[in-house]
């Protein structure tokens, strides 16, 4: 019985410790991005990226979807995406692109916590997502 109690308590303690590590990042970034969404910053950034969208088989507006996915998460991206009325092929392209690369701020922070080369991984994810979107646009 003592073993079970000890294990349980250790689980709670370690769980709390790791939750705190994450929560410390989640709260400020969540607020920062919510504020940014209310300003024109994100749509300016999207305008900047929209010229490359056509190489991925996507309309210029899709830059907003990608940015929302990169910075926040897939649900934010889908919320931006639904009103655009995309085709099934475009949804598939975005699905692969965002599957490979999303929620980058928080996920990169987790990778940093496991003490690995997180910046290299971040670059790999972003480049892979663009390369793969370009590639499947050609083949499907």
């Amino acid at each position, binding site marked *: 019985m003592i073993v079970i109690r000890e294990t349980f308590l250790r689980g709670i303690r370690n769980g709390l410790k790791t939750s705190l590590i994450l929560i410390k990042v989640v709260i400020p970034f969540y607020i920062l991005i919510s504020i940014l969404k209310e300003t024109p910053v994100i749509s300016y950034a999207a305008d900047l990226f929209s010229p490359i969208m056509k190489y991925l088989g996507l309309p210029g507006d899709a830059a907003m979807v990608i940015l929302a996915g990169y910075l926040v998460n897939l649900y934010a991206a889908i919320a931006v995406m639904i009103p655009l009325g995309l085709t099934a092929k475009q949804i598939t392209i975005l699905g692969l692109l965002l599957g490979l690369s999303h929620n980058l701020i928080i996920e990169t922070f987790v990778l940093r916590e496991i003490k*690995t080369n997180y910046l290299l*991984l971040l670059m790999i994810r972003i480049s892979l997502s663009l390369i793969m979107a370009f590639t499947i646009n050609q083949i499907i």
Partner: protein
Amino acid sequence: MNSFNLITVTIISLKGAILLSLKLFLIIVPLVVFYEFLKRFTFFEKSGRGLDYLMGKVGLSSRAAIPLFTGIFLGIAYGAGIIIQGAREGSLNKGETFLLGLFLATCHAVVEDTLIFVVIGGNGLWILGPRIFLALTFTFLLSRLIYYFNHRT
């Protein structure tokens, strides 16, 4: 945006941030407790050999199993508790940690991520297939490379 709006947005987002933190907390704590029990009752040592063989193909040992599978199914953000802890305690070396990161960076939360795009009309095969393929190929190639550099004379 005027100052009134800024305050409103901050308050609303603070509420959202706290809710999200609560959700993270509610998912991570029970998972870590579960993980501690598996570890205490030497589940990992027992499930050893078959898993070792499969994971060996991509240069990982069964020590990385729990963070790997948590990441694949739950995702990096929700699986964070176990990923961080498992990676720290599993005494993974530098190469192995990077391989784990590489695999998970390309291929994680596969069920949820794929389904939400399929629901709105995407093709699940094209969304998930390339991710699994990339993760396996990249980890495999890099692990060979690491092996080669560690064993050259």
